[in-house]
């Protein structure tokens, strides 16, 4: 693409974006593109991260989330489009002048420096005088609740401690934006949960704008103020965790975030903003918005979360019937997989909180399944309809 | 494009070194095409006489001997070095590992002259081997070991052994031991597992080691000079004789050029031979 075309598109975006809201934005990308050879890593990304918020970039590997982070950090240069930090265009500003804090996946602690030297590195680069530097390093280490290790080397600390050091090192320079690149992926499960809570607390306490890259949807849902879901180099949806989970913008977002059953249904009728679809013997009301191109009688795919499906109780209307095919015991709940070839090419996932679910619905049992609540969403059927599998992140 | 700070400062000195080296090589090439003016350090006009002179049986013989000695040395070194490299990589005890490494590698850092002199003391007529054999009564007069191809090759294997060990060990170290275990779990005995898995996977190291051993042997001077003692001659000895004893630089240069061409021919031959094997390599 010529730079002229890119420029024109950039102007187009600038027009559509509320310029008055920009003083609220800490980091802003406008029509940013990045290619590596023939591969487009990031296509036309436009996103605005508000001051003080924690924004997650969520998506499978290769979706462009790390590229976006590296563009904000200045490790990569954008092919086109604009990147702003605090209203200032930073495309041509090198990393070391961007006033950012970054925490790396493997923490990237300097192995040849002590903990105190690691944390104080950014301050030394800024020419902070020794007494002041020492005080601020101590404060930063206290903030992450890590004291008494100043003289040790990084390899002498545990994974969780190293992460605290990395966080302190990134925060001590009071960055304009904190960038976190999959920071929890190296930690074991229990430690991960407690570190997540701690980082979220510190982030809220300091009010530092944070961009957080992850491929773990659970992590994104629990930590973020807002989430940007990315796939194949494009930002698919930006919204609060609840919006992303309940009102996914497209099939990809619906199936990537949270578990979901994809069921074959038919559009029945439309009425204002709502549409009615037929699933087996049930009629279900869904939003009409994603179905603008579908006409009554056409096939649609109904996306239903496991918690929106349950085994029909006596007298309850049954949507579909099926056979229990497998159990997965999860402690606090049981995942039951039901063969219902009529509506679902793969198996229907039903989540039961009943402690005796396994004995109540043994493998081979015939069950009736009903849809509860109003959370289901229908999308246009995919051309090669095979019925999706319940996906989990 | 990413910024490349200090590019010019970083590359220029190396480029200068490369240029100096190329200039030296170009000079050799230039001299090889000049006529020799006896009794003078100056050279005459351009000529191909030096190269036609190389075809004389006397010189052709030296070329053949050199290639034969190089080949023999490389092959012997490979056979001797492989077990050491294998032991080095697979030794469990750190101390044993360090000992093998230091012993195997020390000759590399000893220099040709010390090594060659040591071998003279070992192989000479009143040297170590002859003294021991005489004392044991196995022989009644000293064996003539010095000034034979055997003696030269023995000393040269000693020279090339360390580098061969290093290259083989580097290749072996990068082979996942799980491969050999997998082979054994599938019913291959330890020897079969080694022959069918580890040996083929170490081929790149073998080729690199043989190539280096060949080039080093070709380059050896003190060993054939002192241990060969004029009975075993290699190209290096001839170049020295012609260059620094007779001051026939043009002919010495043409010998060098021919030797260089031969080295590169053998090395590229080895590379071609290695190509079909390389896809088995670990990388």
């Amino acid at each position, binding site marked *: 693409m010529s730079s002229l075309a890119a420029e024109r598109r950039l102007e187009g975006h600038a027009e559509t974006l509320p310029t008055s809201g920009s003083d609220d934005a800490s980091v802003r990308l406008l029509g940013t593109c990045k290619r590596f050879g023939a591969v487009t890593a990031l296509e036309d990304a436009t996103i605005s991260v508000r001051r003080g918020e924690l924004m997650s970039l969520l998506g499978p590997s290769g979706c462009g989330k790390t590229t976006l982070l590296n563009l904000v950090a200045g*490790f990569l240069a954008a092919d086109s489009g604009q990147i702003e930090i605090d209203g200032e265009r930073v495309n041509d500003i*090198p990393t*070391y002048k961007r006033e*950012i804090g970054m925490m*790396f996946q493997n923490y990237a*602690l300097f192995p*040849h420096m002590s903990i105190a030297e690691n944390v104080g*590195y*950014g301050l030394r*680069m800024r020419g902070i005088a020794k007494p002041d530097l020492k005080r601020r390093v101590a404060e930063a280490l206290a903030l992450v609740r890590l004291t008494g290790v100043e003289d040790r080397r990084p390899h002498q600390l545990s994974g969780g401690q190293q992460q605290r050091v990395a966080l302190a*090192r990134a925060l001590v*320079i009071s960055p304009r934006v904190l960038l976190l690149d999959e920071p929890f992926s190296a930690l074991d499960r229990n430690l991960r949960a407690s570190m997540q809570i701690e980082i979220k607390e510190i982030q809220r306490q300091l009010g530092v704008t944070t961009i957080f890259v992850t491929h773990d949807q659970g992590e994104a849902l629990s930590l973020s103020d807002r989430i940007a879901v990315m796939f194949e180099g494009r930002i698919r949806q930006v919204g609060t965790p609840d919006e992303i989970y309940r009102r996914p913008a497209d099939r990809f977002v619906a199936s990537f975030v949270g578990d979901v059953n994809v069921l074959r249904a038919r559009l029945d009728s439309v009425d204002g903003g709502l549409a009615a679809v037929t699933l087996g013997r049930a009629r279900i009301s869904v939003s009409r918005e994603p179905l603008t191109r579908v006409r009554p009688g056409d096939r649609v795919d109904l996306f239903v979360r496991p918690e929106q499906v349950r085994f029909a109780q006596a007298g309850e209307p049954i949507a579909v019937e099926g056979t229990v095919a497998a159990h997965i015991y999860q402690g606090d709940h049981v995942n039951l997989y039901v063969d219902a070839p009529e509506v679902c090419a793969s198996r229907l996932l039903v989540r039961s909180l009943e402690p005796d679910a396994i004995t109540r619905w043994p493998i081979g049992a015939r069950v009736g399944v009903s849809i509860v609540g109003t959370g289901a969403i229908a999308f246009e059927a995919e051309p090669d309809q095979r019925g999706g599998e319940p996906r989990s992140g | *494009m990413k910024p*490349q700070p*200090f590019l010019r400062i*970083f*590359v220029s*000195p*190396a*480029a200068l*070194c490369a240029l*100096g*080296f190329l200039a030296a*090589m170009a*000079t*050799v090439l230039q*001299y090889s095409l000049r006529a020799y003016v006896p009794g003078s350090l100056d050279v005459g006009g351009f000529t191909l006489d030096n190269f036609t002179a190389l075809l004389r049986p006397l010189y052709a013989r030296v070329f053949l001997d050199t290639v034969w000695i190089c080949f023999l040395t490389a092959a012997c070194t490979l056979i001797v070095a492989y077990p050491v490299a294998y*032991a080095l990589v697979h030794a469990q005890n750190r101390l044993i*590992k360090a000992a*093998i*490494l230091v012993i195997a590698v*020390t000759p590399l*850092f000893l*220099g040709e*002259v*010390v090594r*060659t*002199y*040591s*071998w003279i*003391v070992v192989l000479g007529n*009143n*040297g*170590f081997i002859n*003294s021991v054999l005489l*004392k044991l009564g196995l022989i009644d007069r000293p064996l003539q070991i010095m000034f034979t191809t055997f003696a030269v090759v023995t000393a040269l294997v000693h020279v090339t052994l360390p580098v061969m060990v290093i290259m083989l*060990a580097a290749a072996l*170290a990068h082979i996942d031991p799980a491969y050999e275990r997998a082979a054994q779990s599938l019913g291959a005995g330890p020897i079969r597992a080694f022959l069918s898995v580890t040996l083929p996977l170490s081929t790149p190291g073998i080729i690199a080691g043989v*190539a*280096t051993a060949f*080039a080093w042997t070709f*380059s050896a*001077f*003190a060993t054939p000079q*002192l241990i060969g003692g004029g009975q075993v001659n290699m*190209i*290096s000895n001839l*170049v020295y004789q012609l260059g620094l004893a007779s001051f026939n630089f043009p002919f010495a240069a043409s010998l*060098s050029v021919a030797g*260089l061409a031969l080295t590169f021919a053998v090395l590229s031959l080895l590379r071609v031979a290695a190509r079909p094997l390389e896809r088995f390599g670990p990388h």
Partner: protein
Amino acid sequence: MVGTLAVLAILGFVILPAVVVTLAAFNDKAILAFPPETWSWRWFATALAYDDFRSGCVNGLIVAGWASSIALLVGTAFAFALDRYAFPLKRTIEAVLLSSLVVPHFTIGLGFLILAAQIGWARGFAVVVACHVVLVLPFVLRSVYVSLRNLDQRLELAAASLGASPARVLGTVTLPLLVPGLVGGWLLAAILSFNEFTASLFVTAQRTQTLPVAMYNYVREYADPSMAALSVMYILATATLLTVANAYLGLGKVLNVEPRR
């Protein structure tokens, strides 16, 4: 078992000359005999007092010091550019510099000898050092390049994100982390240069004669054990240096023969 014996036999073959030359060095008589009939230190004194050995040692240290230090600077800078940058003739320069590994030393020596004569350089230290730089550069290049490859580039990105300019990243992160590779490369270069013989034979003059050249000339002239005594000192010094290098730098890592984890 057979394998262990074979390895021991081969290692025996490797150290046999060193052992034999040590025995010879303590032989009191001027003519070799095994075992020596009477023992003596006198050849060590003779070797240490011999003028050509003394000046050769000094010359060798001068040449090795200069050549390895220049090669370290040139090689480090180039290895860095090789690893990180794209520039014209990149592979060509690399190939030329590495080719000194396979070009016979007598050819390189002859080349520098004629070149120096042609451009009117006297046969002083400059030409010897220049020749040695070309000879040891591949080793420095390789050692530094391997260290650079093993360096986690995220550490440099982290430094940049913390406000370090490219020059300060180089000074505070990259170079300090490269120190083992740099020291290893320098040591390797210095040892190789100090030991270099064939090319030195061509490019040195009486005044710049290095120790190996002096020893070669001695062996051609005399057969007494003072050469053996010198060899013993040489072997001891080298083995000590290598053991120390192994303990502090991990020779296995420098030579890339450690098994992968």
